[in-house]
């Protein structure tokens, strides 16, 4: 069965600094997607970034980038130039085409200090 592990329940970063959120996963599938979602207090889940497993290049979206290590089954999120609006719960998620399931980690609560 697939599992997603986020080992950092809480993180804190100073405004304008860089922070990295960790995620590891376990799967026997070769074709899958990995995601980072942001959930602010409004509760709406917002897609931050997506990575297709077959792509070697790490995904980037403006200040957000990932370090995808397929062999190590690691998928960390780097937030550069952190802003107050980045404060939220961040979830790492896995989707495997064979099982058709979207599985989440337990989340990391990110605080941004002014």
């Amino acid at each position: 069965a697939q599992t997603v592990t986020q080992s950092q329940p809480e993180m804190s970063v100073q405004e304008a600094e860089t922070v990295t959120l960790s995620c590891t996963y376990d799967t026997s599938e070769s074709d899958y997607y990995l995601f980072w979602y942001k959930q602010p207090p409004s509760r709406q889940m917002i897609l931050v970034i997506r990575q297709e497993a077959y792509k070697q290049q790490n995904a980037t979206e403006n200040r957000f980038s990932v370090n995808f290590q397929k062999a190590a089954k690691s998928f960390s999120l780097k937030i550069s130039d952190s802003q107050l609006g980045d404060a939220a719960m961040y979830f790492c998620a896995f989707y495997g085409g064979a099982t058709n399931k979207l599985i989440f980690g337990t989340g990391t609560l990110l605080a941004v200090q002014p």
Partner: protein
Amino acid sequence: DVKVTQSSRYLVKRTGEKVFLECVQDMDHENMFWYRQDPGLGLRLIYFSYDVKMKEKGDIPEGYSVSREKKERFSLILESASTNQTSMYLCASSSGGNRGWLAFFGQGTRLTVV
């Protein structure tokens, strides 16, 4: 824009009541999902559906059932609500195809069972 709409944002029900949580998507997506979100546990998959009248158990299906009579609507049913089902419930639908796999979420329903 894709829209996933959950029928209620907040709901209070009594122990033993039959509860229906409704989710509607407007993008003709085949896959739909129900999760519950609890602090420290992340999002846990209750049920998902990959087609009309088709359903698959997720990781925590006990105490829940689902119905998908039409493609756009996926209902979560608590046959006899209990206090341990007090939680936030999130619905999602997903697309595939040329743009890759992606999930879209509703705004969540916070259910309190008293």
